[in-house]
């Protein structure tokens, strides 16, 4: 049973269940629609790259449009809904279907005035469906304070999914929750989902345990001097790196070095930009001698730029997840996470990042997150919330000294490796970031103790 208000995505979920069944699992399906004609339904889901017409032509899906119109029906005595059973049975047998959708079953209540008969017949229908050995998705309208308007969830014993579409702070989010799923331990949270061009996508669920493998190999940061500060070998592959610093401290430049180095190794990268357009970023990086355009042309570097306010937090996460699934990169940069902060509360952002990091870690993707700190004094506290999620934390700060403003780089922590504890001065030149501090090799070797 899938319930939800109008526009919550019930029909889509049901359609996708049939389409995927027919195209990916070799299970044919029957779609009994009570609300939309075959033509309307086909047109509606065509925008989602589902070609129902073709599947109907191949006899993989049968659609039966059941039109219920009370004005046409005069009730004159005892009746049952055997006709519905016969139609369904006929459709199932005609293609030996394994999947059935009834969308939206509530339409029957508008068509027939005797709820007693209807309830009895629906209970019989659900039992009958089970006896047929088919998996049935039945959609129902949400009621006031109840899961479904007509309490249909009482008849369905196996699984109940609730879809919800709400708007918080002008940002709309779709959510999905499994109320009941007999015989399985299911997640009980609300999971955000998106309706994209390829159908419904639910977010990667937070890994329940921390069981991802930790790769041992290391990747260069793109700067030899910085590699040297990190035990001479750079970051761990699959680790999460936080680059935090005030405005203009070169966070994006440092990220560009890392991306450039990854592309040189022939690895694919996805760069999420929330502040500027890719062309502007490429131009700015070219001015410091890093040519990223060549990598975008060769297909190694993919930019995804979006204004943070355009989407809800979960939608960002889904979009990022989608981009990562598509490109399958070795390196991901999120520039910057502050922009995500503007969309949600700190807790929500932390939860979102946690899910993203879990997902990246399981896929062994090295991820760099940049974070803008408000002022020098607060730079460590503002990132407090998320720093625990990060394996390596590099602070970039402006240091005033003898009337001059210098930039200093500091490895605040780096799990699992000896690293420098020196504030190393650096400059941003027309050939990239240059670390100019005293040679860090002499002063490293200290393990992070957490």
């Amino acid at each position: 049973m899938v319930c939800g208000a109008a526009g919550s995505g019930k029909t889509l979920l049901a359609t996708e269940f049939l389409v995927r069944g027919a195209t990916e699992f070799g299970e044919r399906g029957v779609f009994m629609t009570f609300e939309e004609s075959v033509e309307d339904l086909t047109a509606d889901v065509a925008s989602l790259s589902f070609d129902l017409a073709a599947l109907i032509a191949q006899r993989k899906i049968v659609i039966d449009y059941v039109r219920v119109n009370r004005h046409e029906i005069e009730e004159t005595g005892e009746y049952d809904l055997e006709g519905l059973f016969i139609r369904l049975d006929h459709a199932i047998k005609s293609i030996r279907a394994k999947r059935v959708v009834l969308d939206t079953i509530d339409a029957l209540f508008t068509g027939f005035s005797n709820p007693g008969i209807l309830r009895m017949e629906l209970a019989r229908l659900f039992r009958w469906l089970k006896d047929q050995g088919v998996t049935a998705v039945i959609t129902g309208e949400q009621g006031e304070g109840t899961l479904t308007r007509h309490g249909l969830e009482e008849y369905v014993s196996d699984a109940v999914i609730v879809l919800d579409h709400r708007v918080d702070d002008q940002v709309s989010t779709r959510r999905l929750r499994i109320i009941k799923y007999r015989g399985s331990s299911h997640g009980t949270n609300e999971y955000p989902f998106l309706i994209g061009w390829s159908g419904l996508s639910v977010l990667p669920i937070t890994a329940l345990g921390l069981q991802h493998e930790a790769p041992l190999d290391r990747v260069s940061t793109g700067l030899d001097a910085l590699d040297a500060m990190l035990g001479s070998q750079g970051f761990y592959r699959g680790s999460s790196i936080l680059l935090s610093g005030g405005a203009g401290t070169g966070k994006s430049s440092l990220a560009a070095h890392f991306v450039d180095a990854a592309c040189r190794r022939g690895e694919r990268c996805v760069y999420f930009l929330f502040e500027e357009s890719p062309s502007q970023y490429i131009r700015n990086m070219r001015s410091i001698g890093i040519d990223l355009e060549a990598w975008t042309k060769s297909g190694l570097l993919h930019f995804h730029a979006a204004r943070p306010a355009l989407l809800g937090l979960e939608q960002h996460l889904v979009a990022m997840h989608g981009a990562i699934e598509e490109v399958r990169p070795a390196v991901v940069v999120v520039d910057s996470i502050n922009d995500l902060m503007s969309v949600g509360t700190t807790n929500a952002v932390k939860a979102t990042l946690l899910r993203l990091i879990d997902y990246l870690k399981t896929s062994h993707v090295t991820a760099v997150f940049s974070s803008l700190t408000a002022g020098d004094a607060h730079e460590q506290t503002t990132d407090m919330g998320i720093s625990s999620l990060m394996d390596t934390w590099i602070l970039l700060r402006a240091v005033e000294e003898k009337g001059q403003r210098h930039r200093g780089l500091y490895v605040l922590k780096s799990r699992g490796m000896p690293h420098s504890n020196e504030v190393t001065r650096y400059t941003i030149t027309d050939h990239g970031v240059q670390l100019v501090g005293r040679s860090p090799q002499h002063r490293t070797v200290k393990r992070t103790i957490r």
Partner: protein
Amino acid sequence: MTQAARKGAERWNLRLYVAGQTPKSITAFANLKKLCEEQLGGNYSIEVIDLLKKPQLASGDQILAIPTLVRRLPSPMKKIIGDLSNTERVLVGLDLVPKR
């Protein structure tokens, strides 16, 4: 066109959808037969369709409930569900008496 004129002018074409010989369908057929004789004289034909034998016919007339009586002629098409035991409602449904 008045009811009487239409009654006289057109032959009634009725279809009764059933699913096997259930008590409800037997009652419905008996009720229908009686009513037609009283109201329409001999000017009618009844086609009984057993959906257990011809399930493919159910979608054409949008049949869900059993028994369903469909008045195909005279047009417009009318649909009546149930065992037709409520004669008054059947007459209303078939447009044989004006709706109150």
